[in-house]
């Protein structure tokens, strides 16, 4: 199968084209810009179109309009730009419109910097916009996953009529890796019998979400919550790495999932039974991965933020196991040695680093 050396951002863009994405609306922001650049070059050749919006808000609302017609559509940004899109995210979730939204996380708050960061974990997984809603969040940890999860994101968006977020960081977006151009998987998806395409030969339709009475508001909200609960039940995904005999666990996603694997190998060379759980869906958080861990004496989350996912891990194990976090902020990377050192420190283990 054809493999090509691409930046992670370009892998996302190529997968979007091969997923049947027909429209892309976006606004340039480092370190996500290669997505709009790659698509500007290549999407028109595939019969689609790229429109550079006047801002992030326009771009996400253009996606809203295009999704209302049933077209596959995507936008991409980085943290400050993703913040601007939150109004749109809330409306997309409310109006149940399928859009793929990429956030190549840079460090913040504020303008911040470009280095790899996972500082947007809370924003992406807990909502970000106003109101009671959830969005599926996928977290690739390497170039091929940037490609694969993008394809998955389009299918999930259509399956549930919902916005789906791909959350990566500047290192994943910028690093070049060989990418296999896989064909779009054949997935059975519901018919889009709700689209507003002009009412030729059918009754008129509308796409909107508002309620003029509290009773109607309750009904609509409960219907949405039932959908979110279904996603939570069916879509939790994660990777287990050396967890079968593990006594200690690392939990890390994206770049930290990768660093975590190296730390596991390092620990195992020294006889420490360390394993890794790498969440693939950040929402729904893979709570099921933590249901039965009788041998585990301690868990260390590895995060490029001040400790955000650690809260979800504590909830997942219901605080029955000691959970600590190893973090680095400001756009700096963590080394596998530093992970091991922290593990030894918090769980009183002897390691050589």
């Amino acid at each position, binding site marked *: 199968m054809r493999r090509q050396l691409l930046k992670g951002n370009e892998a996302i863009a190529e997968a979007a084209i091969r997923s049947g994405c027909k*429209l892309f609306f976006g606004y340039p922001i480092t370190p996500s810009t290669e997505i709009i650049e790659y698509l500007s070059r290549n999407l028109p050749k595939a019969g689609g179109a790229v429109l550079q*919006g006047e801002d992030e808000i326009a771009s996400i609302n*253009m996606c809203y309009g295009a999704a209302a017609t049933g077209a596959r*559509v995507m936008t991409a940004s980085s943290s400050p730009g993703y913040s601007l899109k939150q109004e*749109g995210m809330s409306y997309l979730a409310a109006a149940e419109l399928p859009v793929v939204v990429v956030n190549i996380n840079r460090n913040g708050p504020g303008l911040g910097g470009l280095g790899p960061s996972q500082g947007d974990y809370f924003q992406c997984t807990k909502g970000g916009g106003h109101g009671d809603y959830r969005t599926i969040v996928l977290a690739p940890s390497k170039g091929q996953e940037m490609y694969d999860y993008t394809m998955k994101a389009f299918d999930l968006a259509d399956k549930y009529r919902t916005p789906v977020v791909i959350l990566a960081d500047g290192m994943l977006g910028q690093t070049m890796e060989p990418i296999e151009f896989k064909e779009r998987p054949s997935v059975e998806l519901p018919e889009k019998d709700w689209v507003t395409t*002009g009412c030729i030969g059918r009754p008129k339709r509308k*796409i*909107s979400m508002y309620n003029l009475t509290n009773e109607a508001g309750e009904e609509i909200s409960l219907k949405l919550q039932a959908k979110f609960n279904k996603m939570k039940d069916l879509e939790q995904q994660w990777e287990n790495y050396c967890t079968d005999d593990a006594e200690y666990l690392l939990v890390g996603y994206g770049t930290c999932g990768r660093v975590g694997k190296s730390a596991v190998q390092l620990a195992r060379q020294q006889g420490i039974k360390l394993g890794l759980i790498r969440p693939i869906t950040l929402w729904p958080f893979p709570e099921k991965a933590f249901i039965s861990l009788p041998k585990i004496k301690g868990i260390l989350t590895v995060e490029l933020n001040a400790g955000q996912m650690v809260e979800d891990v504590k909830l997942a194990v219901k605080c029955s196991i000691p959970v600590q976090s190893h973090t680095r902020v400001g756009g700096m990377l963590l080394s596998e040695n530093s992970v091991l050192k922290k593990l030894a420190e918090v769980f009183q283990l002897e390691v050589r680093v």
Partner: protein
Amino acid sequence: MEKVFSKTKGLTDVPFTYCPGCTHGIIHRLIAEVLEEMDLLENTIGVAPVGCSGFLLDMFSCDFVGGPHGRAQAVATGIKRAMPERTVFTYQGDGDIAAIGTSHAIHVAARGEKITSIMVNNAVFGMTGGQMAPTTIGGQVTTTSPYGRDCALAGPPIDLPKTIATLEGAVYVAAGSVDSPKNVAQTKKMIKKAFQVQQKGLGFSFVSILSTCPTNWGLSPVDSLNWLRKNMMPVYQLGELKATEEVNAL
């Protein structure tokens, strides 16, 4: 007996939610009549604003989409880019298009986006209870300009159609009023021309319409019409502000 008037097929039987004397209803009818006359009802997707007219999705018999406050033209852009063969229009109040949505108003015009936007200007934020809008005229009392709009503090009002007319991509810009039968007829012609411009794919078309808000102005419907004539007409230029040669050749 000959039937001389009937309700347009462009409107459903859903009752209007507007206050007595509000002219939104007239403007709805004009647009619906134009779409029916041009045989566009099945071809059209409307985009609703947030505001008093935010519930018009149910009142028109064409497909309709409602999004966030001020974003209608961005939403319409997405629809039009996905379905260039469809007729796409936005219906927006002055608060929606000339305040929170101004950036989109400028840029759809700059891009020559092949959509039609209808702006209804009643010089206040109506739905939230009559606050000052960018279109509130000097001295006008609103709940957030209780001593009258102080132009030294809040600036003078925006005449959005004039601004839009300066942009090359906006090929047809007109400003009408629905205060009198003559002006209602004139405004309908403008709306029709705006949709013809879109059908021909000539560029962005924009019609602004002066409208009354008796409730928030604190006036009777008749006094509101007089207030509009006396106070708004001197501020907002009426007529066809811009029509390119191609448009005039229609």
